[in-house]
C-alpha cells in the first residue's frame, strides 16, 4: 500500500486500514476515488461526530473478519413472483429474464454520489462496491407499472459485503421493492438510491437481521419529483451495530413520503433508525411513524429530522412520531427527533415517547388467564403493528417475523 493511501485516514484502526487496502485493489476510477475520499476524511464515524453519538462505528468495527458461526439465514421475504438481485461478500446474481418496463445495467465503474459528504458510510459503499464478480453500480430503470417486485438480498458468510444500487422511476412508473439484510458478513454497507420522477410511486420494504458480531450500514438516498409517492417500511432487529439511514428530498411540489419503521432489539443487538427529510418544494407531505421495543441489553436509536427551508418549504405538511417500549430493566432507547423549520406557513408535528408496558393492560390480560410472557408479546406486537401497516403484501410476513421474535 502506498504511503499516500495509508495516510488517507487519520489514526486508522485495523478495520479502516483493511478498507483502504480493499479500495487500493479496485481499478482506478475518478468517481470511486472521490467517494472514498469523502469517507476517508472522517474515517468510520464515531461518537464525537454529530448524528453518530449513539452509534459508534469506529468502536464497533475494530477489524473486518468473517464472524464466527456466520451461517445462511433464511430469507423470510418471498422470492416467488419477485425479481431477485442477490449480493454476497464475493458475488452477485441477478435474473436473466426481465419483463418489459425494467432495464438493468450492471456497471463495473462507480457513479458520482453527490451527497457523499453527508453520508460517509453511503460513500464507502459507493467506493467499495464492485470488483471481479460484482457490479460497481447496479442501475435499474423502470418505465412500467404492474411489475414484479424487485428484491435485493444481502447475505452470505464472509468478511465484507458492499453494494450500490440506483433505481430510476420514470414519470408515472410504479414499483415495489424489498431488501433483506440477513447478516453473514462481518461488515455490510449498501447504498440504495431512488429517484422518483413526476407522478411515480414506489413502495420499499426493508427487513434487517444480523448476529451480535455483525455490523451493517444500509444507506438510502431518495429524490422525489412532482407528485411522486414514496412509501417505506422497515423492520429491523439490529446487530452488533446496524444503522438504517434514509435521506429524502422533496424536490418538486406535491410529493408525498411515508416512512415507517419498527425495531426490536434483544440483548447484544443495536439498531439505529436514522432519517432526514428535506422539504425542498412547496406543499409536500411527510408521514413518519417509528415504533420500537427493546429487551435488556438491547439498544434502539431513533434519529429523525425534518428540514423545512424558508422560501421553498411553504405549505409543508409533516408529522413525525416515535414511540418506544422498554420491555425490561436494562433496555436502552435513545431518541432525537428534530424539526428545523424556517418557513412560516407549515403544519409540522412531532411526538416522542418511551416507557414500559402499561401495567393495567398487563394485569387485565393476566387476569383473563394469559401468561405474563404471552401478554407481553401480544401487547408488544399490537404496539409495533401500526408501523408495518403500509408494507402491503409483505405486512403479514413482517408481523410473523416480529411475532416469532416476541415468542422466543
Amino acid at each position, binding site marked *: 500500500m502506498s504511503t499516500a493511501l495509508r495516510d488517507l485516514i487519520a489514526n486508522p484502526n485495523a478495520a479502516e486500514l483493511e478498507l483502504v487496502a480493499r479500495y487500493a485493489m479496485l481499478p482506478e476510477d475518478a468517481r470511486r476515488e472521490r467517494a472514498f475520499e469523502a469517507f476517508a476524511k472522517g474515517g468510520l464515524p464515531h461518537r464525537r461526530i454529530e448524528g453518530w453519538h449513539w452509534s459508534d462505528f469506529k468502536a464497533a468495527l475494530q477489524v473486518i473478519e468473517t464472524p464466527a458461526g456466520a451461517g445462511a439465514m433464511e430469507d423470510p421475504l418471498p422470492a416467488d413472483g419477485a425479481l431477485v438481485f442477490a449480493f454476497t461478500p464475493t458475488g452477485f446474481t441477478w435474473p436473466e429474464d426481465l419483463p418489459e418496463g425494467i432495464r438493468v445495467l450492471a456497471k463495473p465503474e462507480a457513479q458520482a454520489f453527490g451527497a457523499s459528504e453527508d453520508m460517509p458510510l453511503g460513500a464507502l459503499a459507493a467506493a467499495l462496491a464492485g470488483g471481479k464478480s460484482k457490479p460497481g453500480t447496479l442501475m435499474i430503470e423502470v418505465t412500467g407499472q404492474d411489475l414484479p417486485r424487485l428484491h435485493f438480498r444481502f447475505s452470505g458468510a464472509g468478511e465484507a459485503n458492499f453494494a450500490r444500487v440506483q433505481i430510476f422511476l420514470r414519470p408515472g412508473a410504479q414499483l415495489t421493492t424489498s431488501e433483506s439484510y440477513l447478516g453473514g458478513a462481518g461488515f455490510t454497507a449498501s447504498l440504495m438510491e431512488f429517484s422518483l420522477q413526476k407522478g411515480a410511486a414506489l413502495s420499499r420494504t426493508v427487513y434487517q437481521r444480523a448476529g451480535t458480531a455483525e455490523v451493517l450500514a444500509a444507506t438510502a438516498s431518495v429524490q422525489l419529483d412532482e407528485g411522486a409517492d414514496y412509501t417505506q417500511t422497515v423492520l429491523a432487529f439490529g446487530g452488533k451495530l446496524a444503522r438504517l439511514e434514509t435521506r429524502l428530498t422533496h424536490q418538486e411540489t406535491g410529493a408525498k413520503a411515508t416512512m415507517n419503521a419498527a425495531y426490536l432489539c434483544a440483548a447484544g443487538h443495536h439498531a439505529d433508525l436514522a432519517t432526514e427529510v428535506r422539504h425542498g418544494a412547496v406543499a409536500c407531505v411527510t408521514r413518519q411513524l417509528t415504533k420500537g421495543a427493546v429487551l435488556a441489553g438491547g439498544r434502539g436509536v431513533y434519529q429523525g429530522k425534518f428540514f423545512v427551508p424558508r422560501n421553498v418549504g411553504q405549505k409543508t405538511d409533516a408529522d413525525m412520531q416515535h414511540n418506544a417500549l422498554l420491555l425490561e430493566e436494562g433496555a436502552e432507547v435513545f431518541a432525537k427527533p428534530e424539526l428545523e423549520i424556517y418557513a412560516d406557513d407549515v403544519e409540522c408535528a412531532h411526538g416522542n415517547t418511551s416507557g414500559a408496558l402499561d401495567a393495567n393492560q398487563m394485569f*387485565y*390480560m393476566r387476569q*383473563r*388467564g394469559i401468561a405474563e410472557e404471552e401478554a407481553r408479546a401480544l401487547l408488544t406486537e399490537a404496539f409495533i403493528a401500526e408501523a408495518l401497516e403500509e408494507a402491503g403484501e409483505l405486512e403479514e410476513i413482517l408481523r410473523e417475523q416480529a411475532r416469532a421474535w416476541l415468542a422466543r
Partner: protein
Amino acid sequence: MLKIENLTATVGEAEEAKQIINGLTLEVPAGEVHAIMGPNGAGKSTLSYVLTGRSGYEVTGGSATLNGENILEMEPEERAAKGMFLSFQYPVEIPGVPVMTFVRTAMNSQRKLRGEDEISAPDFIKKSREIAKQLKLDAEMLKRPVNVGFSGGEKKRLEIYQMMMLEPKFLILDETDSGLDIDALKTVAEGVNAMRSPERGMLVITHYQRLLDYIKPDKVHVMAAGRIVKTGGPDLAHRLEAEGYEGVLGEAV
C-alpha cells in the same frame, strides 16, 4: 368455595405502603351469590385486586382459598386458570388486539395451564355467536380491539361476554352497574343470572342496591375500613339504601 380468613393487605411500595384490608373474614359457598356493599374507601376494589393477584397489593396476613387451594401464592394467570374471574369496574382498552383473538388466547392459555386441549376454531366461533346473541352484542364489535372506542355499557357487556365464554368457577363483579342505563343493566344482569349454578360462587361488589334488584344475593355483607362489619340477608341492602351506611353501621359497631 371461596374462604377468606383474617386477611390483611397493603397497597403501595415499602414506606408508602398503606394497610387497606384489616382482618377480613368471609366465606362464599358454592352456589351462592354474596354482595359486598360499603362506603367509598372501604377497600372493596382492593379486595378484588388482592384476590386476583394484582401487583402493588401485598398480603401481610391471613389466607384466601378457593376450593381448599391457597390462591394467594399464585400468579394472576394461574388464579384465572383455577377459575377466578374479575369483572373490572373500569375495563381496560387494549389497542391492536381484537376481542376474538384476546378471548381465544385467554381461553387456550387457561386450558393449557390446566393441561387441557385447545378449543377448536369452529367450536369457539359457535360458542361466541351464541353468547353474543344472548348479550345483544354486535358481531362486528368482537372484531374490534378490546374495549377501544366502546361505550361504558358496551365495555360492561363485553366483561360479561368474556365471563360467559371462559366459564369461571368464581366471579367477582366490581361495580358492574356503574355507567349502565337501565336496559344495559338488565341485559348484564340476565347474563350474570344465567351463570348462576350449584358449582359456582359469586361476589358482587356494589355501591347501590339497584343492581341487587336484578342479581338477587343470598347474603349481603357490609364492608368498612377493610373488614366485614355486618352480614345479613337481602333486606340488609334495602336498609342501607333507606338509612345510609351511618345509620346501619352506627347500630352494628
